[in-house]
């Protein structure tokens, strides 16, 4: 192959590179700079050295947000497990199965904000569905203030994420299932696998690319969660900051309290975490690419 210099590839790449430079690379560099300044967006930034980072280390709310963001990762394995199960169920050629698939998809396309409004009502103290059922069948002696119990804020938001994500990831796995040849299952049955073993030995390996894909997407989304927290806590972050995550804290510091410099330091930590994550993810992706 003769390599004659040609402008063509660069021209093809130019629009994307310009956009990425302006809206991702430059802002990232700017955030690095802001994180060393006292900045409130209105007045010009003022250099303060490492002060923001020192404050960060001593800031209990930041650590709370840090922990919460990691706790939020529980949604990823849960979502993978549940949505594979659901995909297996809806993969059966039952009449009307398309209707069910569509129904499960309702929360996904309705959007977090609309769904979150419904979700808040479910957990309402006075006559919300959850209290109604649990008190009704005698599990709870008295209604619980779900949305005002620090221990429940994060789990409720996580349930919301799972509830929304379930239909979405189900579709991803469903698509994957339909690519697994039927004879593999037949072979497994002949080999004496019971239904559970069948899925363990055939379905899971067959879904490997989808699992990696969902793991990457949903874990990044979990680390960067904001909308769910915003809707569930009414923009407050929950009692005792129980629902505050990294991105929520970033937003609150930057846009509610006008501490954009400090928020930038939070952003830098977020960047480090996603960096670590992505290295793991890329490894996984590469391995799955080699395998298939």
């Amino acid at each position: 192959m003769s390599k004659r210099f040609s402008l063509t590839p660069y021209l093809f790449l130019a629009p994307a590179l310009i956009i990425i430079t302006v809206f991702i690379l430059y802002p990232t560099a700017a955030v690095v700079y802001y994180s060393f300044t006292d900045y409130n967006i209105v007045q010009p930034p003022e250099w303060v050295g490492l002060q923001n980072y020192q404050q960060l280390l001593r800031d209990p709310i930041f650590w709370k947000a840090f922990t919460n963001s990691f706790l939020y990762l529980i949604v990823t394995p849960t979502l993978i497990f549940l949505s594979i199960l659901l995909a297996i169920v809806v993969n059966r050629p039952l009449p009307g199965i398309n209707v069910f698939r569509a129904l499960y998809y309702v929360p996904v396309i309705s959007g977090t904000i609309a769904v979150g409004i419904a979700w808040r009502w479910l957990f309402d103290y006075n006559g919300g569905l959850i209290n109604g059922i649990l008190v009704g069948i005698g599990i709870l002696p008295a209604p619980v203030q779900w949305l005002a119990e620090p221990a429940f804020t994060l789990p409720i938001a996580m349930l919301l994420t799972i509830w929304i994500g379930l239909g979405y990831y189900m579709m991803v796995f469903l698509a994957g299932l339909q690519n697994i040849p039927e004879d593999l299952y037949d072979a497994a049955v002949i080999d004496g696998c019971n239904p559970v073993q069948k899925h363990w030995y055939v379905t899971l390996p067959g879904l490997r690319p989808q699992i990696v894909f969902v793991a990457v997407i949903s874990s990044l989304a979990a680390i960067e969660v904001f909308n769910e927290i915003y809707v569930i806590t009414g923009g407050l972050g929950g009692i005792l900051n129980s629902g505050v995550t990294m991105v929520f804290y970033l937003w609150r510091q930057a846009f509610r309290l006008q501490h954009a410099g400090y928020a930038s330091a939070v952003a830098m930590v977020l960047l480090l975490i996603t960096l670590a994550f992505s290295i793991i993810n890329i490894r996984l992706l590469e391995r799955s690419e080699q395998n298939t």
Partner: protein
Amino acid sequence: MKQIEKGYLSAAFVLALAAILFVACGAPAAPPAQTVRETVVVPQTVVAAQTVVAPQTVVVPQTVVAEQTVVVQPTAAPNPEAVIKDVEPNAEVSLWTFWLSPTFDDYIKSTIARFEATYPGVKVNWEDHQATFQDDLRNAFAAGNAPDVINLSVGEGWVSDYATKGLLLPLDDKVPQDVKDLYFKGLWEEQLVDGVNYQFPWYQGISVELVNMKVYSDGAGLKLEDFPKTVDGLPELCQTIKDKTGTLCNIRLTVNDLLAQMVYEGGVKILSEDGKTCTFDSADGAAWLQMYVDMVKAGTVDRSVLVTDQDRVGLDLFTSGNSAFYQTGPNLIREVRANNPGLYGYLAAVPAPVGKSGVLGKGLMGISVKNDTKFPNASIALAQFFTNPESMLEFSKIVAVYPSTPKSYDDPFFAAKPIAVEDSAKPIAKDIVSKYADIVPTVPNKADVNEAVLQAVQSALFDNVPVQDALTTAAKACTELINK
């Protein structure tokens, strides 16, 4: 083609199934819970028998609430309402109000029309913002396109927030003395920041405790005249209501201005004489906080409402009929009526309990001008116009708010006997409004200080941190912040 057809088919299926579920789930609920009947006006709903709000016993007969819209025709120039001089020709000023649309669209629009006729050549662009008002306004300031004229809450501490950040225009030098004299002196000075005023006092509220007689009287067996006169009576009341009815008390902290609440309610001295040290970790401060901690521990208050930054959260709870009382302005009673007409008949109002300071509190709403407006005089004129005696009187006629201008009370409207429960404070409004006073010292860096206090208060309320420890931590952080 076929695909699309199938698509519609499955859409139809979804709807059909939804309908089936709808019917299926609907059925068990069959005996329709007779939760709300017709608007029953309870004859014994006595509005404040022995109370300050309405000295005479006001019985609500057939509550007819007149809701006429007052559209005032522009008067011909020279206009006596044009009190601000040197208004910039062809000025275009933007105005943001807080939670007045859509209910008061007609009033706001007609007032703007009257303003534009009074100051020919000035154009007003009006926007109303509700729950996201504060977020929108902060972003607009950050983006450099904040509105020229802004309706800010004095009670929630917004004026002092923005003023301490240097975002508002100081008014003392810009407004002639005879215009200042139009307002109650206490209101003009109700929110001074380092001795400077940044707001035209606008509509005022008389804090009342709205009582749901169904829960309070029928459920808990309490008498209206026994409603606590002071804040420290609340814990016992809430315990009784919880024991008898299982409903929680609907009490809200002023989370955006906790130090002010400490001052009014707990009589706490928040700053040292020299203004260099925060002193709210005193015995008074601890006592104030301890009361709320005890209520939370006893499980007698709704925790979400207690620490929400939105007054409407508490109002929602009251409106839903699930709380015995809520402290609010009579102007919001219409919200209750609109959303739960069945509850309206059970409403009564008593004066809100006062705290240790004995001072009634600050006023409700102000109108400020942003510091870097292009049209300071036109903006001041607009802010002044909305708060002038005429505009205030017209506003009072549509909703139970009270003017900041003594002259408005001369109108026969205020002499007329109140009919509806929301008007019960009318005869004594002037007296109460004239006594509003600011007794809270200016706290530098207030927003950050408040954030620190809020965290401390929350840790005491919900995380078992001893009250004294929480306040000491906050006071230390506060001292650091005010000397920054």
